[in-house]
């Protein structure tokens, strides 16, 4: 059983190390992104085009997915369909068992986090090792990623040095990042050499050629999809794009928004397993297409744009709430604004609806989004739906607003209320307790503004008469 969201927030806010790590990381990523988009006109044109490409693809999902499946099969890629996480896990397990696999190496993939693949395979005695450096660090500490692009962003170098020492028995000089990466490289290369299966996500899938695109810096994505004899790719059905002409725009938006890079070290386009006569690459490639709520989102006029997301993480980097509480407090696969929008839709408002509370509607996420997803509007829509489904009148908030409305609709009542507030101004209402722990609760004035103005004009008149 998960702790309450508010409790997790409280714990995160009290952890000053965590807050420093996030503050530093978010400032860094925001500056990098801003430098990459220094030409405002270019950014706007690029963004508009990116939004159009994604919106168009979502509108044409049935057509594009049919084409993608057909073309992949033509190329020799096996295509599977999964309605939810359970089905996707089963499909992947089946393939692994057919090959008597014991060791799986994984490139970075949020979709596999969404279906909790590692735990599932572990239950069936298949070890699944994360190979992205950040994911590897997080897995080593039995944690989940706290950011969709930089999974170990909540830890600093010293904490990772300690973790490696404790779990791997290494001793690297303090503050030496190169040495830490060297350790990861050595251990994971060994895994790449001997793994039975490689699993990856997909950043974009090109429908008309049946091509899977992977964007990365480390080379672990390339190794996971080239070294093992079998490659399984898992993707949400929304990640399809029509053709390669659409790719440059999305690539530019994705990498610049995510890390401020104009391009990543590697862009890897995979269209088939090893062909006759070729000397390397997997002999089998599988593509698992995951719905998990996405098809329904595509049929909701107000929420459809959720699917345009290219998972760059810019919305969380710009979110004042995420910056302060970090990714783990959300307790969900996708944190930050996009998580607040995605999670309640795939897991239900009842289970994940509380995530929607952690938003001040400041609008920063919507402005940072490279494909023009109006995240604040999506959050408002979901908040509305959440209230619609609950007996809203009797909730505390709804009751307060009801009374407030009545008071403001009736001048007589309004005057009486302000009068009462001036009389009982020192009365402790006990309401904003949490807020007031570090602040002074303001008191109502001795006299309402209306009365003050009235009194003043009275004295003025008196003076004039004298």
């Amino acid at each position, binding site marked *: 059983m998960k702790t309450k969201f508010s409790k997790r927030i409280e714990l995160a806010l009290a952890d000053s190390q965590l807050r420093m*790590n996030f503050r530093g990381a978010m400032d860094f990523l925001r500056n990098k992104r801003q430098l990459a988009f220094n030409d405002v006109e*270019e950014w706007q*044109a690029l963004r508009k*085009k990116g939004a159009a490409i994604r*919106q*168009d693809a979502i*509108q*044409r*999902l*049935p057509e594009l*997915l049919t084409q993608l499946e057909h*073309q992949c099969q033509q*190329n020799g890629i096996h295509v599977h*369909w*999964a*309605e939810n996480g359970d089905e996707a896990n089963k499909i992947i397990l089946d393939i692994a068992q057919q090959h008597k696999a014991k060791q799986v190496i994984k490139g970075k993939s949020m979709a596999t986090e969404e279906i909790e693949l590692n735990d599932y395979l572990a239950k069936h005695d298949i070890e699944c090792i994360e190979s*992205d450096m950040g994911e590897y*660090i997080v897995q080593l500490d039995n944690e989940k990623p706290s950011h969709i692009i*930089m999974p170990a962003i909540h*830890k*600093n*170098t010293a904490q990772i040095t300690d973790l490696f020492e404790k779990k791997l028995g290494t001793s690297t000089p303090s503050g030496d*990042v190169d040495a*830490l*990466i*060297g350790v990861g*490289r050595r251990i*994971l*290369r060994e895994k790449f050499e001997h793994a039975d299966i490689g699993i990856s996500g997909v950043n974009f899938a090109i429908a008309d050629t049946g091509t899977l695109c992977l964007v990365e*810096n*480390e*080379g*672990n994505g*390339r*190794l996971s999809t*080239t*070294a093992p004899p079998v490659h399984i790719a898992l993707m949400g059905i929304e990640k399809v794009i*029509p053709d390669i*002409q659409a*790719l440059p*725009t999305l*690539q*530019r938006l994705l990498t610049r928004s995510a890390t401020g890079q104009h*391009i*990543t*070290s*590697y*862009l890897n*386009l995979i*269209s088939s397993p090893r062909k006759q*006569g*070729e*000397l390397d*690459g997997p002999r089998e490639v599988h593509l698992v*297409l995951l*719905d998990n709520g996405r098809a329904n989102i*595509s*049929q*909701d*006029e107000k929420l459809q744009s959720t699917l345009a997301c290219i998972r760059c993480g810019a919305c969380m980097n710009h979110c004042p709430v995420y910056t302060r509480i970090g990714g783990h407090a959300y307790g969900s696969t996708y944190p930050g604004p996009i998580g607040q929008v995605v999670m309640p839709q795939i897991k239900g408002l009842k289970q994940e609806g509380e995530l929607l509370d952690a938003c001040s509607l400041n609008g920063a996420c919507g402005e940072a989004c490279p494909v023009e997803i109006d995240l604040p509007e999506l959050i408002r829509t979901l908040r509305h739906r959440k209230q619609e489904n609950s007996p809203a009148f009797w909730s505390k908030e709804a009751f307060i607003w009801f009374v407030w409305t009545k008071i403001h609709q009736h001048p007589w009542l309004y005057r009486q209320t302000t009068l009462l507030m001036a009389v009982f101004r020192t009365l402790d209402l006990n309401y904003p307790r949490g807020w007031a722990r570090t602040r002074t609760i303001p008191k109502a004035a001795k006299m309402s503004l209306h009365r003050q103005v009235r009194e003043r004009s009275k004295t003025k008149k008196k003076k004039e008469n004298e």
Partner: protein
Amino acid sequence: MSEAKKAIFARLNQRRVSATKQDCKAPLATKHLNKTEAKNLLIEKLQENRAEVYSIPSSSWTETLTAIATERGYKTWLFGKNLSGAKTASKALESVSNEISVIQYDSDYETLREVLFHQVDVSVTSVKAAIAETGTLLLIPDKNEPRMMSLIPPVHIAILKQSDIVTSFQQIANNPPWQGKNMPTNILFISSPSKTADIQQTIAYGAHGPKKLIVLIIN
């Protein structure tokens, strides 16, 4: 059709949302670079991303390789079959010192795996095209130059003809150097040595792939 596919398509085909026309092909403002500008920009971007770049006349790439071998002591070299001067280069390298050996990627990965992971110091590949705007090399691995060549060895030397430099990725996407819908097994865009910033946003090179990327531009 699988049950899952049927159910997913039933949901997708409810048509509860009306489609609006999207302008997906709007042209974006692009730079126009002449040959020299393109080359200079490519070099600048590659160097920004920590690649080493040598711009050399066509006669001398063997000399450049032997110079690198002598200077840095790279011992085991890996070649494919796409580079036309590979034979000459191999001979020249082996004559530098008897410690230097040249391996050909001519058997399958399973046979060569040990050697690839544990012996090869440097591999040399051709490059299909390059993108000046981002400092990116386009490699299309095939049976003559397999995928692992630019991935496992700690040093990757890429040989690019100056005439193959274009300005943008969009140009390649619009006029791809492959046959229409018939995509090669694997296409790679490489812009730097392997790197990561996963530990406290500090960049470290040689995360999983090559620690060094050396580009020879042949004029």
